């Protein structure tokens, strides 16, 4: 074999590499597939889908699929530019309903008069004073506004018990909710055009007054609920649709998305009922979400636990956001890096990293020992639950806020200092506005973790079932995960097999929508950055 170049090289075997790549791919999907299977099972149980006949599914599929696929196909093929319009138009109404629910709970806890008084005497004057001074570029604006607000709050605090006569609830709600919302819409939609601003504001307020009279007649809610629904649901939907339509760019087909979605679901159910023999028997329905807890499976509801979770999350959101972002600002912007101060800074950093790894059940013990035993707050009340969970997610909030603040380029800071801005002015005007999306994403993800936490709440003695929603920050509270925990242990198998899946799906929907919101914010932010 003279003349050949024999290097002993006989080709590379690709088998090993292929097997490895296949294994890696299979492993990556393993967890996701298992989760998908579990979710499918729990959804089937929660909506009683096992009870429906094959004919019902066939009918439902055709009734739902034909209009929905037709519309989606039109969007994808003809108007791909409208996909975000369609998504927003679909997301805003349910988001508005959730917001209305949150407002409803807030007005349940504190009387409308409380909001009316503090809004009129403290918040409104403070905003007015701030606007006045800020428009003159007076740097003392926040300080003066803060003082005015505190004074107003103090006056309200002392005056509140003295006032016997108060306006009707729907008038107060219009004043507190609808007029500011109208002002916001007028400001955003018609900047600089005084006449149009006045028209928009007038139309908004007229709608609010109309809603408080028409609502009770039309959909049978009280007049104050009607105003809340109007402010949180009707106004945003009308605002978004109106804004898209008034641009006259032919984007209106995107706005049909929610109509098509609801219409095709209705058509699917109608056709399914027509063709099939038995429909699904859902446990998770409106009644389940609004009923109080019960010892009879058929009457069991999640309402007190939902309200409890909202209360707890409200505290957690405020405390962990303020403290977490503050701590992150200190660590990234103020903290000394050298000398004794630098040692302290490093210690704080390491400490936060370690706190993030402490098991949640230990935080429960901290809450029990600190808030209940030492300070003497009650066992299992809203405030203790909120503070304990705040401590739990604080490290996560701080770490994500630090990352967001760190990602702001150094040269914009230097530019701001070069213009003579102080450190705080730089943070407020330059750093924070750029870091806000990242901070919000991290906070929402942390909150979605807090809403599912069970062990710390069990440790601080929160009840697994309360029969009435909490009425204040000192009342006994349950939460959605606790209720799920209680049901999965119940002696009656109906609770385990029927009611618990419905609770699981509700909790998952809340948690997943928070995750989706966070991922959406992050993607949007990454696109803009």
């Amino acid at each position, binding site marked *: 074999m003279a003349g050949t170049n024999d290097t002993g090289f006989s080709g590379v075997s690709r088998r090993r590499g292929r097997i490895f*790549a296949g294994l890696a791919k299979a492993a990556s999907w393993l*967890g996701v597939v298992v989760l998908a299977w579990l979710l499918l099972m729990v959804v089937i149980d929660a909506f009683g889908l096992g009870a429906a006949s094959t004919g019902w599914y066939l009918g439902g599929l055709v009734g739902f699929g034909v209009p929905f696929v037709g519309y989606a196909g039109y969007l994808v093929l003809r108007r791909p530019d409208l996909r975000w319009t369609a998504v927003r138009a679909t997301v805003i109404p349910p988001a508005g309903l959730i917001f209305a629910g949150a407002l409803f709970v807030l007005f349940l806890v504190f009387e409308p008069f409380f909001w009316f008084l503090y809004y009129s005497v403290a918040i409104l004057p403070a905003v007015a004073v701030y606007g006045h001074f800020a428009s003159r570029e007076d740097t003392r604006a926040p300080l003066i506004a803060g003082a005015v607000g505190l004074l107003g709050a103090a006056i309200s605090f002392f005056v509140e018990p003295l006032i016997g006569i108060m306006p009707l609830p729907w008038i107060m709600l219009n004043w507190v909710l609808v007029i500011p919302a109208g002002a916001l819409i007028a400001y955003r939609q018609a900047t600089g055009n005084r006449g149009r601003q006045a028209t928009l504001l007038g139309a908004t307020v007229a709608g609010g007054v109309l809603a408080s009279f028409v609502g009770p007649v039309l959909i049978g809610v009280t007049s104050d609920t009607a105003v809340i629904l109007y402010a949180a649901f009707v106004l945003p939907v009308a605002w978004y649709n109106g804004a898209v339509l008034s641009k006259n760019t032919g984007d209106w087909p995107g706005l049909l998305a929610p109509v098509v979605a609801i219409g095709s679901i209705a058509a699917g159910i109608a056709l399914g009922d027509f063709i099939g023999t038995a429909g699904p028997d859902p446990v998770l329905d409106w009644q389940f979400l609004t009923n109080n807890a019960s010892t009879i499976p058929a009457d069991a509801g999640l309402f007190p636990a939902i309200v409890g979770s909202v209360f707890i999350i409200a505290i957690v959101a405020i405390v962990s956001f303020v403290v977490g972002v503050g701590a992150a600002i*200190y660590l990234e912007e103020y903290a000394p890096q050298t000398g004794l101060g630098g040692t302290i800074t490093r210690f704080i950093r390491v*400490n936060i990293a370690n706190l993030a790894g*402490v098991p949640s059940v*230990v935080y429960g013990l901290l809450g029990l*020992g600190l808030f209940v035993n030492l300070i003497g707050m009650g066992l299992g009340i809203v405030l203790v639950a909120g503070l304990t969970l705040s401590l739990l997610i604080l490290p996560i909030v701080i770490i994500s806020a630090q990352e967001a603040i760190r990602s702001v380029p150094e040269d914009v800071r230097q530019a701001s200092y070069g213009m003579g801005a*102080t450190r705080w002015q730089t943070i407020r005007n330059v750093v924070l506005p750029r870091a806000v999306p990242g901070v919000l994403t991290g906070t929402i993800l942390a909150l979605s973790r807090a809403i599912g936490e069970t062990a710390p709440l069990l440790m601080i003695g929160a009840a697994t079932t309360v029969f009435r929603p909490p009425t204040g920050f000192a009342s006994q509270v349950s939460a959605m995960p606790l209720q799920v925990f209680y049901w999965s242990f119940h002696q009656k198998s109906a609770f385990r097999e029927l009611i618990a899946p419905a609770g699981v799906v509700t909790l998952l929907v809340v948690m997943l929508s928070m995750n989706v919101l966070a991922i959406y914010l992050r993607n949007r932010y990454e696109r803009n950055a």
Partner: protein
Amino acid sequence: MTDVSDTPDLSGDRGFQNVREGFYKATFFAFAAATVLTTVGIFLVLFVDAIGFFAAYSPIDFLTGFDWSPSLEPVSFGVLPLVFGTLVVTFTAAIIAIPVGTLTAVYLSEYAAPRTRAILKPLLEILAGVPTVIYGFFALVYVTPVIEFFFPGVSTFNVLSASLMVGIMTIPMVSSISEDAMSAVPDSLRQAGYGMGATKYEVTTDIIVPAATSGIVSSYILAISRAIGETMIVTVAMGMQSSIPTVQTATVFGIGIPFVHPGEVFLGSGQTMTAAMVQIANSDIAGGTLAYKSLFAIGLTLFAITLLMNVISNIISERYREEY
């Protein structure tokens, strides 16, 4: 109107501003210091009641006792059955999460197309974000029947279903940190490997994984620490009976070989340290009793173990990091 003028204010009167700057700095420092106070609080809370417990109950008996029965007379606080339960769960979970998580990280970092990554990563985040009480419910209601299909004698509350679920839950912990470590390996190393004629498999296993070892190992430790501290899955799905298996002896060729029957370990119920804490907190044991104080003794043990593992993980990722 106001006296807005074009001449800058150079008088240098920053009295008010200095006060404001100092105020913000002090406030933010207080917030950062609150995290240190949290740690101090955890230490104090755990120590005070744990010392009370150990004053009344011998630490030796606590650490070497084979019987955990805090509420039934005569009470006994031997922590070994709980430690055994925790070890079984952690070990089983690690057997699932470590290989699967590592392979996931390899796939995401080296093999997956950007499009696949964009789908898979959020899904894994969701896998990590599902509340653990829901995983516990899944293990009890959906996983146990599957196990029953293969092992009909399994009890409703069993160790295996809970351990499998903890394993699935910790996959994303391993994969996300490991993937960060692998992605941080500079591209020049990959290109050098290809330039030497290495296949993708060889580049991955001989270059990327060794270069990212510190991150991968610290992800293992964090995941194990997470599995040790995991509470709700084991509370819901594992039953509330602490157990430690009996050591049997099999005679092979006349020699007695001690062994533990796996069915006894996995198919029966068990209890971990965390689940025992929930059980005590949720029973009507009054504050101040020995059983109540034992809560803090277990809490301290748990806190010490997880803290130690976190510190080790930090040291490994700091010290053995390959600098590029």
